[in-house]
């Protein structure tokens, strides 16, 4: 099976001369559809760089990035933007919702940017919000929502449409533990629908929700492991009441 996200010998170097910093060194990583991978590592290990390169927000210095069977370096800027609209959903630690747009408009924005009519996009946006329990907050602006609600809106925006790859950079970093768990549950649910997910986190507890944990240090993958079954798997294995 072709992995949905494939990184081949990816390296990333920032700056030049004495200011040169190597953020990633020869990274090879595959993420299959329906798989949730957690990236862990100390600060400066290259976690966020890996995610931004995987999400086509920046280009690797060397190596190849394949998303859904397409080599990103072969694509023009506009085509990469189209891929971000259609195939890649991004969740940021600090939500990154656009002020001035309601929750529904924020969620439907990628669809509208892709040419879907405002009415149809809004219907899809409200549907995504309703699935995440925010149907009644669809008309609220970001500054009228709590932190947990904002992150749920951000997740709704990341999964709306036919997204195949979900990338989350410390999605629970600005949330309390209850909201953090809820967000992880949502990401897990999305992956169950066949979405490939990659999350960057410092929190081992949250990483336990992933199918696989990848450890980074100094820009290299130093270890990969299959995460122990999370609380949800325990619930899932319990006999029906």
């Amino acid at each position, binding site marked *: 099976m072709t992995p949905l996200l494939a990184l081949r010998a990816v390296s990333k170097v920032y700056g030049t001369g004495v200011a040169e910093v190597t953020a990633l060194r020869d990274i090879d990583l595959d993420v299959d559809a329906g798989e949730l991978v957690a990236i862990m590592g100390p600060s400066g290990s290259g976690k966020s760089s890996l995610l*931004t390169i995987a*999400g086509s*927000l*920046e280009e690797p210095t060397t190596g190849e990035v394949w998303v859904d069977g397409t080599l990103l370096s072969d694509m023009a*800027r*506009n*085509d990469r*933007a*189209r*891929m*971000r*609209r*259609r195939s*890649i959903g*991004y969740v*940021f630690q600090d939500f*990154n*919702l*656009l*002020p*001035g*747009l309601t929750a529904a*408009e924020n969620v439907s*924005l*990628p669809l*509208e*940017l*892709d*040419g*879907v*009519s*405002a009415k149809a*996009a809004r219907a899809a946006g409200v549907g995504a919000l309703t699935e995440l329990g925010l149907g009644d907050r669809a008309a609220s602006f*970001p*500054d009228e929502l709590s932190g947990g609600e904002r992150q749920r809106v951000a997740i709704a*925006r990341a999964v709306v449409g036919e997204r195949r790859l979900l990338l989350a950079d410390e999605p629970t970093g600005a949330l309390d533990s209850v909201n953090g768990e809820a967000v992880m549950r949502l990401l897990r649910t999305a992956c169950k629908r066949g979405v490939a997910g990659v999350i960057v986190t410092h929190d081992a507890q949250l990483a336990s929700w992933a199918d696989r944990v990848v450890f980074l240090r100094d820009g290299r993958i130093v270890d990969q492991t299959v995460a122990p079954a999370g609380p949800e798997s325990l619930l899932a294995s319990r006999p029906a009441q």
Partner: protein
Amino acid sequence: MTTSNGGVAARRAVVRWAARMFRREWRQQLLVLALITVAVAAAILSAAAAYNVTPSNNGEVGSADRRIQLRPDRTSSLDADIAAINQWTGPVDVIGHRPVAVPGSVEMVDLRAMEPGGRLSGSLLALRQGRYPRAPGEFALSDGTARLLDVGVGSTFVFDGRQRTVVGLVENPSDLDDEFALVAPGHADVPESVDVLARGGGEGQGLPAELQSRVRPERIGATEKTTGAVLVLALSTVVLLLIGLVAAAGFVVIAQRRLRQLGMLAAIGATDRHLRLVVLANGVLVGAVAAVLGAALGLLGWVALAPRLEEPAGHRIATFDVPWWVVAVGMALAVATATAAAWWPARAMARVPITEALSARPPRPKPARRSAVAAVLLLAAGFACLAVGIDSTKDEANPALVIGGILAIVLGVLFASPLAIRVLAATAGRLPVAGRLALRDLARHQARSGAALAAISLGLGIAVAIVVIATAAAPTAAEGNLSTRQVLLRAVRSDGPGEAVPDHTSAELVTMRSEVERIAAGLDAPTVIALEAVVDPTSRETTRGQVVRPAVALAWQVSPHTFRDAGRLYVASPAVLRRLDIDPQDIQPDTDVLVTRREVHRVIVPSKGPNAFREAVKVQVIDAPPYSSMPTVLMTPEGLRRRGLAPMAVGWLVESPTPFTDAQLAGARHRAAHTGLTVEARQSQSDLTVTRLAATGAGMLLALGVLAMTVGLVRGESARDLRTLAATGATSTTRRTLTAVTAGALGLLGAVLGIGGAYLAIVAGYFEDLSSLRQVPVLELVVTLLGVPFIAVIASWLMAGSEPVSLARAALD
């Protein structure tokens, strides 16, 4: 089907977001909005005024394009002539004229016979009060005529040998200075001449040959109203272009503020075109709002101004006779200016890498070398264009080169701004920590601080240019018409016969002389010098009811066939020579004229008609004060005799040891008016002073507005540094110092660049006559150079006490 850019739906979504952001953050764009609004309002108001200064119809022929003057006293029949013209051109309007002397006055009144509401002459007559005359013995008067005759509606009196009743007040709406008495046509008032107004008729074919031999149809061109409006519009375009540069700086600031949001947009799949559209849409919105506000403001201003403009324009003005196409073009220009101004920030922001945009880090400053080279080239090109394009000695200019030169210098200053900031930041190493941080932050945020600096420089540069040019145009204390210690009392009424010399009787002169003594008695120990002009004793004429003699003037030869007026010739009396410290013994016996410049001079005697230029006169050069109204062009008594000319009293020069006060001058004018004298004192330079002060104030306000917009942003985004400083023990004084140094540095750099750029442009413009710039407006320059940074430092010190609002907003975002 969708494109890679998402088509209309995507553009609509992006524009909707831009509109929402404009609604949320319009206050931050108030400066740009205000500038464009004021420019549009001023353009529309000025264009409407320029358009309406010219009347819609000719004040003499109305909407006719042909006037044929007939003389009824000829042997031919007036009616037959009119019928022939009618047949030639189609329907005509007929206006009869008969000048009638006003009893007891030299003034004449035009007794005019015409039908109201004529097809061609309708715009030449309007009723203001009462009714039009219908019967013999009735007439309607224009205001001036009613005043002259001292009558009103209902008055009955004998005029032109007939008992008449004033039944109304009328006017010529196309020429308010046209004074006349209207009578009903076809009655007993036989006209002395008749104007037949017609339209069309070709080149004379169809007019009976006999009539063609007697009359000469006069072609009247249509009035051209649009030229003034077009010129105003062209000037407004240049002004808007300059405002566009300030607006670009404003949009850079706004775009930088939204950089993180643009990064978010890009992260969810917006293309470069979408990102550009966000900033461009903001520009279009700002332009559209400013255009609507400016147009409304301009039109309201015009509605208020139009009635007040009628008297100076000399004709009635229809309030809504506005060049609407100019309004539309002005509004379109405002939108185009704002859109064009937003283009560069839009392009720059779309190029910022997504990860850098998301982190809201300022883009890495580009090396200043390239912009420095561009600045030098542009400044040199601008200097060359202005130096070649302006000939200050002949007051001639090539508009294309002038506009090109100004734009090149403005762009040169724009490109020099990043270099100036880098140079300033390089000096930061020796400053205390707050100053060091402030200057280095300016360099870190070079994109916005550079744009803001360019806008500040531009605002101050324009103001300084106006001040320097106004100063160059103003005479020094040693120039002008007279010194502040002199007044010239002319023996002529203020509405007197121009350059001609009134032939006063001895009794009148005695009365005037005693009045001059009385005026002088109210001053501080003055000297009174009687002045005599040179006149032709053989010539005498009547002008405005006064007997006058044409004054003899002197001309100096510029080229073989060109002469310039050297001024009125006065008689070199002993008193005048004493005043000028000239010893009569030093004057050569064969000298005709004493002058201050050594050229070939000729005497002009107006009464000699075509032979006014006589042979060259023998001149002797003297040193005399350069005041233009001082008697410094003098004819010697021997010269008078040799040329057959005569002296005639024209006034008195009164000099005081101390400058005259306004009260003394007002008193002198009051007394002089009662005796038929006219007072000339040093012409006030208050207009230019007001211009200089207004320009300085406006430039400083603009600069401080841009500063406020920029400093708040730079400091707001350096809030983390402030927290770090606070954590290491820095007090609120540090925050105040940081903000004050940021504002002061930008203000000082802006003033230096603005003054430098302005002087570069002006020196280029006056390249062939740099002596005009010897007067330096020191006060205004010092106020600009020190005032802007000083006010910026004080204001930012006072306002930097509280935490920047942008911190709270950043958290919410």
